[in-house]
């Protein structure tokens, strides 16, 4: 019996210490916050109509954007994964992606508005007034032009395909890439818990 126990312990100790699931890094998503060369990259697959995504964006990712991305420590990429069970998620994704084409400042304004008023537009399907409330009239008319651009739909389809490729089955799911290694996490993580990991990765 002792021999078996010793063998098991030796076998496990001799294997690689980190057995966390790794996923391929890369992708062509632009940083909605931070710079592409940042030491840490967080790629979030999200659905604007999903309540957990709302919580994750407002309580976790917004502070990450403010405290880490603006300081150039983290590049945050948001990818669209509108779930079919959410009737207005696809349209919301269009608004957000079109806003990205105007600039990341606009993406932030539109995302803030969409997530903050999620319950309202989820119930009545009226997205345009919510988005218009976050932008000036001039910016809104520019956004409408982008909404008609097939490149926006193509980008959303590309994000959905990438989600399938990476076996993302739920939202929010995010990938943290640092030091050449990518880790996958599904679900909502509190800011203070994510912050500990980011500080560890950044060597603080």
């Amino acid at each position, binding site marked *: 019996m002792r021999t078996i126990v010793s063998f098991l312990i030796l076998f496990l100790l001799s294997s*690689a210490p980190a057995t966390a699931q790794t996923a391929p890094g890369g992708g062509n998503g632009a940083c909605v916050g931070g710079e592409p060369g940042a030491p840490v990259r967080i790629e979030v697959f999200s659905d604007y109509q999903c309540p957990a995504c709302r919580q994750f964006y407002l309580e976790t990712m917004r502070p990450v954007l403010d405290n880490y991305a603006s300081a150039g420590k983290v590049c945050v990429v948001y990818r669209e994964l509108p779930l079919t069970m959410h009737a207005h998620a696809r349209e919301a994704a269009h608004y957000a992606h079109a806003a990205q084409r105007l600039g990341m400042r606009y993406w932030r304004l539109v995302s803030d508005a969409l997530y903050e008023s999620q319950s309202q537009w989820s119930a009545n399907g009226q997205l345009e007034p919510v988005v218009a409330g976050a932008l000036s009239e001039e910016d809104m008319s520019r956004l409408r032009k982008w909404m008609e651009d097939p490149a926006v739909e193509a980008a959303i389809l590309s994000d959905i395909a990438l989600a399938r490729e990476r076996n993302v089955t739920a939202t929010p799911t995010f990938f943290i890439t640092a030091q050449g290694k990518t880790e996958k*996490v599904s679900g*909502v993580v509190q800011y203070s818990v994510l912050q500990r*990991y980011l500080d560890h990765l950044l060597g603080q």
Partner: protein
Amino acid sequence: MLLRVLEWFCRLVLGALFFFAGYTKLGSPFLFEMAVDTYQLLPPVGVIVVARSLPWLEIVLGMLLLRGWKLNYVATFTALLMGAFLLAMSITYARGIEANCGCFGFGEPISPQTLARDSLLFAFAVFLAIYAWRKNKVPAPE
């Protein structure tokens, strides 16, 4: 004879799995903190305490199960711990929360499969505890 074989089987399976589960978590403590946090059951301090202590507890339990030392107590504690895992997973799944199981590594969401697997392990632990207590029972004087 069959019960004795079953006792050995449960003890070795549970012991090896507990040891392995604890070992994988120790390799990535921050990822395990995030996995515990996705259950949305604890405040940040509670998440950190659980995530930092649970892997060591699993390793110690795994070694004790493999060694078979004080099996009645160890198996009972294992059954209680497995029951607590199962309860936390079931509550989280029933609430419709997307969470990482965090059972044997990371990136595995809680699903009917993970619940079924942990239920089976819970059954092993309960059997082991009952069997060990029965075996240890001192016959009453006549």
